[in-house]
């Protein structure tokens, strides 16, 4: 029987634990596929963060470390500096990266650490049960903003990619999503490029991926894709923020 489709060798045999309709699974698959296609699995060390993806060390088929909340980029820096020829990536959510770990992330970017950050932004805290994230939208109701996010009280959703685009150490930075096959193809291209740039030792690379959280948003899976497109993309436009271009020896 001909094999039409197979799970990427970049992922382990462990069943993904994410909720139905959550797009973490798609992002995992894309990262795994890129690592396989670039032949990087034997060289790669991934950093799982704290959040719904805390168990991602069970899913990526490479060496993994699990970092304290927000510290993934510091852990990645530690590893990359002693193993400069290995491929190091972090897999972080919006709470981990944009709230508690914003300092570690900014400074890793600013030092031009030659690592790749996969930043999954779903505008909510999934792991702890639907609290407000730094990227929650104005008016968005969460368990800690029961009356909706209020600008004067909570500030506006932090635009991570826009902010990081100003940092010199960043070699590649793009915001993508995975709501349609077309978007998924673009996301894969972006992730692949980020890893390629790391191979070429060009500096800090990050891909921000807008994602869904049907359970904590309280929206059906299919509707949540629509909600992302209608509500998140206007605030977080899909865009190539930085690309240092073709590589020249």
């Amino acid at each position, binding site marked *: 029987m001909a094999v039409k489709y197979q799970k990427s060798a970049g992922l382990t045999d462990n069943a993904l634990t994410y909720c139905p309709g959550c797009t973490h699974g798609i992002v995992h698959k894309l990262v795994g596929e890129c690592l396989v296609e670039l032949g990087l699995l034997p060289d790669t060390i991934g950093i799982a963060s704290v959040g719904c993806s805390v168990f991602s060390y069970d899913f990526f088929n490479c060496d993994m470390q699990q970092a304290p909340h927000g510290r993934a980029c510091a852990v990645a820096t530690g590893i990359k500096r002693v193993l400069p020829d290995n491929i190091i990536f972090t897999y972080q959510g919006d709470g981990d990266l944009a709230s508690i770990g914003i300092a570690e992330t900014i400074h890793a970017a600013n030092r031009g650490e030659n690592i790749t950050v996969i930043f999954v932004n779903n505008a909510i805290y999934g792991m702890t049960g639907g609290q407000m994230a730094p990227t929650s939208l104005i008016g968005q109701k969460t368990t800690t903003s029961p009356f909706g996010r209020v600008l004067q009280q909570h500030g506006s959703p932090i635009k991570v990619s826009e902010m990081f685009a100003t940092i010199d150490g960043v070699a590649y930075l793009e915001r993508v999503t995975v709501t349609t096959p077309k978007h998924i193809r673009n996301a894969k291209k972006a992730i692949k490029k980020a890893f390629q740039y790391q191979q070429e030792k060009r500096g800090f690379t990050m891909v921000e991926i807008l994602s869904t959280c*049907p359970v904590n948003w309280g929206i059906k899976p299919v509707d949540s894709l629509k909600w992302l497109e209608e509500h998140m993309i206007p605030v977080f436009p899909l865009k190539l923020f930085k690309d240092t271009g073709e590589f020249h020896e």
Partner: protein
Amino acid sequence: MNRITFLTGYYGSGKTEIAINLAIIKRANVVVDLDVINPYFRSREQVALLKSHQVEVLSNQLKDGMYADLPFIGGEVYRPFLDESITAIYDLGGNDLGAKLLQQFGDYCVNTPVDLFLVVNPFRMETSSVEQVIKLITKIEATGQIEITGLINNTNLLKETTVENLIEGDTFLRQASKETNKAIVYTIIEKSLLPIDYTFAGEVIPFTRYFQTSWN
């Protein structure tokens, strides 16, 4: 009680205990733990007990997930909707927050009749007046987009519950039922207090406390 029954209510109203008791008494096949709010006292902790009564517990596919502080639900939670031979009790998390999960089943409920019962303990401060109960019903229905089809009277003060308390609770629930036009389906009474010479609204469910620990 429909083939598929969801239990909702205020935090600590006794949903999980009732889910387990009902599953055993009503011979349900499956208890689905949808409590993503509270990491303690979840029905998934009673897997062994329920298994001995031929009741299966569904929650998530997480390895060691029983204690994970992760609100994951697995694809399996839809199984009772797809397999008509299954009788299932869904244990939701507390309040409208817990009822948020109901959204995920909206499409399935169109073709499958379901019950959504609200568990009320009038001795919980937040549901001690009929107005509060009405407010909770409105919030849960708005969040879950499913109508509450009945009330469960879970009047209790744990071990200190007296027969007087139960009668007081019955009066309260009857009033709430009248004002909301929702029937009282069950009255939960701890086994040790039974029999009681009084007619409670709905079916009396003799209740066993499974989460009893040495310190309460």
